[in-house]
């Protein structure tokens, strides 16, 4: 009988709801209606439109002409597309784990039991407040091969001058390093996660004679895996959508080494007037993002520990 009821259409299901349930349903939906509208208009519609527009030739002026899968075929054969994809994935694959490591480092730093810790916390957090575009501009100068501070600093360690933004081998790395300046907020999340671990666990380990390193590796790390998962998912999103540093510092160069998908999408649409082509790429970017997020999330079952308070 239950199965039969479950097969009934939703309308009938709604009729079976008590009046009170129905009233609360309407109230609930009313409260979340802004989100429902935003979800439909700013998420669902664009995702579908990407695929629809991706099958047209649209210069942004006048009408769009239907061309079927030509854009996708062109993308598959486009060396710049593959280069952009490679650059974006390269950036994501390196920036995300580095980001996690740096965030954990920051959390440890902010957790130090030192009296002036609020000052240190503020200093470390500060660059993440600064707008990325401003930091990018500063980075251009900071990484000048001759007059930049970074090379000057490295020269003390005998490292030869690196042309950070002009050498295709180093340009992405420069951007990855720049991104670490924004690790403040994530560091705080890790800090909160670390604080949530009861000290009794550590005390018990101390009694067993565990060293600081062992405590970190076997207690802290496993117990902050939810925060790590969160950081990875956010990091993947940020990595795949990276735009501002490439636009401001290198415009996709040198030799297309910092041509990221988001930049290629922007250029295709706004520089070369190829909206359909750009939309096709956006659709692909979404698929990649979703795929990665789902994969990581699925895999999280294997390594994330959600401990009950």
């Amino acid at each position, binding site marked *: 009988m239950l199965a039969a009821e479950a097969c009934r259409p939703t309308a009938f299901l709604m009729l079976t709801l008590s009046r009170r349930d129905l009233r609360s349903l309407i109230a609930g939906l009313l409260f979340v209606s802004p989100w429902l509208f935003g979800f439909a208009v700013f998420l669902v519609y664009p995702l579908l439109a990407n695929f629809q527009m991706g099958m047209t030739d649209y*210069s*942004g*002026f*006048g009408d769009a002409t239907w061309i079927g899968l030509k854009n996708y075929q062109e993308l598959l054969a486009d*060396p710049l597309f593959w280069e952009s994809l490679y650059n974006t994935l390269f950036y994501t694959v390196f920036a995300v784990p580095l980001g996690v490591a740096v965030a954990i480092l920051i959390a440890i730093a902010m957790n130090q039991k030192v009296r002036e810790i609020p000052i240190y916390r503020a200093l470390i957090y500060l660059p993440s407040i600064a707008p990325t575009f401003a930091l990018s501009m500063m980075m*251009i100068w900071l990484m*000048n*091969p*001759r*007059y930049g501070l970074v090379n000057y600093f490295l020269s003390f360690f005998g490292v*030869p*001058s690196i*042309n950070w*933004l*002009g*050498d*295709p081998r180093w340009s992405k790395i420069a951007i990855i390093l720049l991104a670490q300046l924004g690790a403040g907020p994530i560091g705080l999340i890790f800090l909160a996660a670390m604080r949530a671990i009861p000290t009794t666990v550590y005390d018990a380990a101390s009694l067993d004679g565990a060293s600081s390193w062992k405590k970190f590796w076997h207690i802290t790390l496993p117990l902050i895996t939810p925060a790590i998962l969160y950081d990875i998912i956010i990091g993947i999103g940020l990595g795949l959508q990276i735009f501002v540093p490439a636009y401001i*510092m*290198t*415009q996709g*160069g*040198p*030799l*297309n080494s910092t041509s990221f998908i988001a930049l290629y999408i922007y*250029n295709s649409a*706004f*520089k*070369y*007037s190829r909206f359909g082509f750009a939309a096709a790429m956006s659709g692909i970017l979404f698929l990649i993002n979703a795929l990665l997020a789902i994969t990581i999330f699925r895999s999280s079952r294997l390594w994330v520990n959600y401990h009950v308070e």
Partner: protein
Amino acid sequence: MALSALLAFPHPPIMKRTLLLLVCCCLNNAAVFGQSQIKFWYGSSTDPREEKGYQELVNEFNQQNPKVQVRIEKVPGSETDAAKMMTAVRSGAGPDVYLLDRFTVAQRAASGLLKDLGPYLKKEGKDLSHEYLDFAWKEVVYADKVFGLPIGTDTRALFYNKKILREAGIDLAEFDPTKGPISPERLKEIAFKLNKADASGAYTQLGFVPWLEQGWGYSWGYAFGGKFYDPAQNKVTPTNPGVVAGYQFLYDWAKDLGPEKARTFVDTYWQWPSVGTLPEEQDPFLTGKVAMVLTGQWELPRIKKHAPDLDYSVTYIPAPNGLKSSWSGGWSLVIPQGAKNPDAAYQFIRFVTDAHGQEELAKVSGMFPTLKSLAGRKDLFPPDYEFFLSLLPVAQSRPPLPVGALYWDKLKEAQEAVITNSKKPEEALQSVLTEVQPQLDHFKK
């Protein structure tokens, strides 16, 4: 300014937004107080002296035409980057007049960005096609329609710093233009004598960097006798032997300098090209960081202003077989689609591109006029321009194609690959062909 004044008064947030919306709508529909306003945009790479010329002409026009006021706005943009303008036009907030690099007119017209000036020309009853230099007129015509009016043109040559050369014991007679162009091999020999490096091996002075300033692939392709387009077959020809030879010249030069060291040198003293425009005082030729440079006649006022004591001269672009080569570029004024006041805009365009306007621009900025009536008017220019004027007859111009800007960008990419030695010229130029030709075929009639 009025906008900020309006918004300075305290309003509740919702009202402010509506107010802003309304004001924006009003901005979009100019014509306030019976006066039409036209927006004239030009890109950030515009030479400062040309800017001055435009400003003077605008003031003059505004005075003569109280009913039409021209407002200048400088926007980010360069020869092939008109993204700002395009995005603005697309959103209905575009300018009435735009300064567009002439060889890209075909491409912009093909994408539906520009207004056909035919109706205006017809109304005026004039046939302007005979008034302008042939190559300049050809560049503003696409699919038998006129989309812009030519303004000025230029030529390129080799500048050399006599003092540095003399100090290195070079015989300046080799550079005498009456002897024709110096050969590329000899140039290389001389230039490499002038390279200096510091203790760590980084270059602090180079004799010549062939790809700096106007040392584009076009320059060397033309110098080596290459052709970039085959009109008979409607094919772009980046793999033409002359073009390949030109790129090979760049490749070898970079190899012998050490591509990374060369790159570091350029990035250090010239800043990364995409990071804004270099302040003129920092021009490496003016500061003595390079002894020679291939560039256009606009360098002359720069030298006069920032390095008046520079002991320099000019000669032909180095080329094999004594080929005297150069090429001409130049700008045009166009009316984008969606212009709010196209009639007034056309009036303004005619004012600037006509004899008086071009004369003024020539005097203020050294731009060569594109009007036949002004050709040979040496009196408009100081004597040091004479050599550049003499190059006009031999100067080529870039093929006006509906993929003009794309072709340029791809050639630039190939150039980058070649000067970093990451691709051989044949390979790099072959990529240009495979990437540009299909786009060109799109436009086959």
